[in-house]
C-alpha cells in the first residue's frame, strides 16, 4: 500500500506539535504527518500531496484562524476529494461554523479544545478505518467492474486469434506491465504448444505475435512457465531481485522486475498459461490487480474451453462432410455400375423391333436405378411382353426387378407356361418364396404390379393378364383400357388372376405402362396426368406414324410435367400390331 498523509492545520504551532506528538505515538507508522499554519497553506500542501499520488485519509483543522476559517477550508477540502475524512477542532463552540462544516464539508467529527487524548485517539482511528473501508470497497467495485468488462470481452468471441488479441491488449493497456504472453495447450493437438505474445511498444498500439520455441526461450523465463504448467498454480513475484527465481538467466538479461503467471484451467484441464511481466519496475502488479487477474484467468479458461470445443466441432463437421462426400461418390459410382448392369439385363429395343418393327419403349427412371422394368420373350410361337413396376424405386426397386426378370425367364422360357393368368399365379408363388426366404419378415411387403401380354401373331390375337396394372388397346381411334386383376404379385389378396383375350385388327396398337406415367403431376403440381388423358393421347398419337408417335408422347409428358419433379419411375411400351 502506498504512503499516506494526515494533514493538520492550526495557526498555533504548539497545538500542531502536540497533535503530531499524540497521534504518531498511537498510529500506524505508514501514516505521516504534514502540518500547515493556515487554510491557504493547507490547501496548497494537500494539492501537492494528492498530485504526487499519495493518499490523504484525514484532515484535522482548527476553526478560528487568521485568513481562511476552518469551515471554509474544510469545505474546499471536501470539494477536492470528498472521501477525505475531516475533523474540526475548536475552542469556541461556534454553532454556525460547525453547522456549515457539517452541511457542506461532510464533517466527520467535531472535537472541542482542549481535547481528551483518548477521545482524539479513538476519533482519529475511527476516521482512518472508515476511510480505508470505503477505499477498499471502492477498489472492490472497480475490480468487479473490470472483471465484468473482461467477461463481456472474452465471452462470445469464437475466433481464437481475435480473442487472444482482445485479452492481451486489454491487459497490457489496463495494467502497469510491459509484456503479456499466452501459451495454449489445445486438447485436439496433444503435445503441441501455441504461444502468442504482445508487448508495450512505445506509443503504437500493441500487436499480437505468434512465438516459436526458440524466441520463447530467448525472451521469457521458461522456469516460471514450466512451474505453472507442472504445479498448475500461479506464480506472483512482485520483486524478482530477491526471489527464488533470480537464477533464471532470462530474468536478469531482460531485467524483468515483476512477474505474474497464472494457469488457465477449466474442468480440471490446463488449457493454457497467462503470463505477464514488467521490465520497468518491481511491484507493478498489486494485490488488487492480482485478484482481478485471477478472476480474468478463470473467465479466460472457460472462454478458451468453448473456443477449443467450437473449433474441434468445426473440424469434426468438416471431417464428417468430407466423409459423406466420399461415401456419396462411392455410392454414386456403385449405383452407376448398378444402372449399367440393370440396363444390360433389360431386353434390347432391337430385339423387340425384330418382331414388331413399329414399336418403342419410353423408360425413365426417377433416380439412376429404376424399379420399373420390361421384359420380352418368345416361347411356343407366342410373343410375351411384360411391363412391371416394383415396390419403391432406386436400389430396392432395381434389386426386385432383377428377381422379376429371372423368374419370368424361368417360368416362360424354362417351365414353358403360356397362359398369362397361370404365369402370374406361378410368378406370385415363386416371387413370394424367394423374397420371404430371408430371416426377417421385413421384406414381406415388397412386391410388384405388372401387365403381361401374350401375342399370337398368326391368329391376330393377344391375351392379357394384369396384376394391378391396366393396359390400353387402341383400334380405329378408340381406346380400350383392359382392367387388371386387383391383386399385386406377393400380396395378401388371394383372388385368382384373370385374363382377357382380344382379337386385334390390323394397324391397332397396344400400350403397356407403369403407374408412374398416369400419376405424374402437372407443372402446377396440382393435377395428375390420369389414365383418361393417356387414353386420349394414345388415340391421337396412334394416328401418327411410329416415327412421330414416340416423340409426340414424350413431348406431351414433358410439357405436362414442366418443372415439377418426376413423381415415380416411368415406363411405356407401345407396339403396333399389323
Amino acid at each position, binding site marked *: 500500500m502506498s504512503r499516506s498523509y494526515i494533514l493538520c492545520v492550526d495557526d498555533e504551532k504548539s497545538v500542531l506539535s502536540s497533535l503530531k506528538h499524540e497521534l504518531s505515538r498511537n498510529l500506524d507508522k505508514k501514516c505521516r504527518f504534514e502540518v500547515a499554519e493556515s487554510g491557504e497553506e493547507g490547501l496548497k500542501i494537500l494539492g501537492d500531496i494528492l498530485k504526487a499520488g499519495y493518499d490523504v485519509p484525514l484532515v484535522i483543522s482548527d476553526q478560528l484562524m487568521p485568513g481562511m476559517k476552518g469551515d471554509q477550508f474544510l469545505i474546499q477540502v471536501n470539494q477536492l476529494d470528498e472521501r477525505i475524512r475531516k475533523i474540526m477542532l475548536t475552542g469556541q463552540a461556534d454553532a454556525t461554523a460547525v453547522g456549515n462544516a457539517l452541511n457542506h464539508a461532510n464533517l466527520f467529527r467535531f472535537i472541542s479544545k482542549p481535547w481528551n487524548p483518548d477521545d482524539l485517539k479513538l476519533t482519529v482511528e475511527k476516521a482512518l478505518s472508515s476511510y480505508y473501508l470505503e477505499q477498499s470497497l471502492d477498489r472492490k467495485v472497480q475490480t468487479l467492474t473490470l472483471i465484468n468488462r473482461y467477461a463481456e470481452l472474452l465471452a462470445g468471441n469464437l475466433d481464437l486469434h481475435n480473442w487472444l488479441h482482445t485479452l492481451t491488449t486489454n491487459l497490457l493497456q489496463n495494467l502497469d506491465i510491459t509484456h503479456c504472453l499466452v501459451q495454449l495447450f489445445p486438447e485436439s493437438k496433444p503435445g503441441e504448444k501455441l504461444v502468442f505474445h504482445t508487448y508495450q511498444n512505445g506509443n503504437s498500439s500493441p500487436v499480437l505475435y505468434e512465438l516459436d520455441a526458440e524466441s520463447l526461450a530467448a525472451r521469457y523465463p521458461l522456469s516460471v512457465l514450466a512451474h505453472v504448467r507442472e504445479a498448475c498454480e500461479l506464480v506472483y513475484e512482485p520483486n524478482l531481485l530477491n526471489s527464488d527465481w533470480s537464477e533464471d538467466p532470462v530474468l536478469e538479461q531482460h531485467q524483468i522486475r515483476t512477474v505474474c503467471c497464472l494457469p488457465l484451467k477449466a474442468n480440471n484441464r490446463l488449457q493454457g498459461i497467462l503470463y505477464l511481466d514488467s521490465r520497468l519496475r518491481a511491484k507493478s502488479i498489486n494485490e488488487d490487480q492480482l485478484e482481478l487477474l485471477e478472476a480474468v484467468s478463470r473467465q479466460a479458461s472457460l472462454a478458451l474451453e468453448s473456443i477449443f470445443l467450437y473449433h474441434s466441432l468445426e473440424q469434426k463437421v468438416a471431417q464428417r462432410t468430407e466423409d459423406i462426400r466420399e461415401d456419396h461418390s462411392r455410392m454414386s459410382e456403385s449405383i452407376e455400375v448398378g444402372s449399367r448392369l440393370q440396363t444390360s439385363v433389360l431386353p434390347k429395343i432391337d430385339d423387340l423391333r425384330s418382331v414388331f418393327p413399329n414399336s418403342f419403349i419410353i423408360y425413365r427412371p426417377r433416380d439412376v436405378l429404376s424399379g420399373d422394368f420390361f421384359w420380352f420373350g418368345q416361347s411356343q410361337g407366342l410373343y410375351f411382353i411384360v411391363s412391371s413396376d416394383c415396390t419403391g424405386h432406386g436400389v430396392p426397386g432395381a434389386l426386385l426387378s432383377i428377381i422379376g426378370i429371372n423368374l419370368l425367364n424361368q417360368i416362360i422360357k424354362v417351365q414353358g407356361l403360356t397362359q398369362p393368368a397361370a404365369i402370374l399365379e406361378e410368378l406370385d408363388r415363386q416371387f413370394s418364396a424367394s423374397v420371404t426366404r430371408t430371416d426377417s419378415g421385413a421384406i414381406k411387403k415388397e412386391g410388384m404390379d405388372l401387365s403381361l401380354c401374350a401375342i399370337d401373331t398368326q391368329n391376330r390375337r393377344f391375351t392379357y393378364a394384369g396384376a394391378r396394372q391396366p393396359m390400353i388397346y387402341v383400334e380405329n381411334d378408340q381406346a380400350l383400357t383392359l382392367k387388371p386383376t386387383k391383386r399385386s404379385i406377393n400380396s395378401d389378396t388371394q383372388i385368382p388372376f384373370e385374363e382377357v383375350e382380344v382379337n386385334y385388327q390390323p394397324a391397332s396398337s397396344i400400350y403397356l405402362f407403369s403407374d408412374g406415367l398416369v400419376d405424374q403431376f*402437372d*407443372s402446377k403440381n396440382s*393435377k395428375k396426368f390420369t389414365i*383418361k*388423358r393417356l387414353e*386420349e*393421347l394414345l388415340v*391421337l*398419337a396412334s*394416328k*401418327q406414324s411410329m416415327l*412421330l*408417335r414416340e*416423340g*409426340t408422347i414424350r*413431348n*406431351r409428358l*414433358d*410439357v*405436362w410435367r414442366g418443372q415439377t419433379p418426376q413423381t415415380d419411375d416411368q415406363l411405356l411400351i407401345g407396339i403396333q400390331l399389323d
Partner: protein
Amino acid sequence: MSKRTILFVDDDPIALRMVIDQFKKHFGPAFRYEKASSAQEAEEVILTELSIRGQLPALIVSDWLMPGKRGDEFLQDLARFYPEIPLILHSGHADEQLEHELVEKAGLLCKLRKPWNGQEHIGTIHQAIQLV
C-alpha cells in the same frame, strides 16, 4: 424456347381469315399462326406441335360450335386433355353453363362476341395475352 403458336379454329373460312389478320396486325412475328376448320384438324395441329416442336400451342382461339363428328365436344375435350392451353372463345352463341365449366376446368381467358368489333376485341386480347 422456339416461337410459339396460336391456333385458330373456325369452320367459316372468312371469319377465320379475318381474326387471323387482326392478330397478325397486332402481334406480328411474335407468334406463329396456325388455322384449323374442324376439331379433327385442330387435333392434328396440336399433335404436330407436340411431335415436331415439343410444345403445345400458346393459345387457342376457337368458335363455339362446329360441324363434324366431335365438333361440339371439341371444347370439352380441350378442357379435359389439355387444361394447360389458354383458350379464347370467338362466338355468336352463348352457353353460360359451358362457359363456366371452361373457366373452371380449362384455361378460358375471355369470350369475344361475334361479329368482330375491332377496338374492343383487340383490347381484350391484349389483356388476355399478358397471361399467356
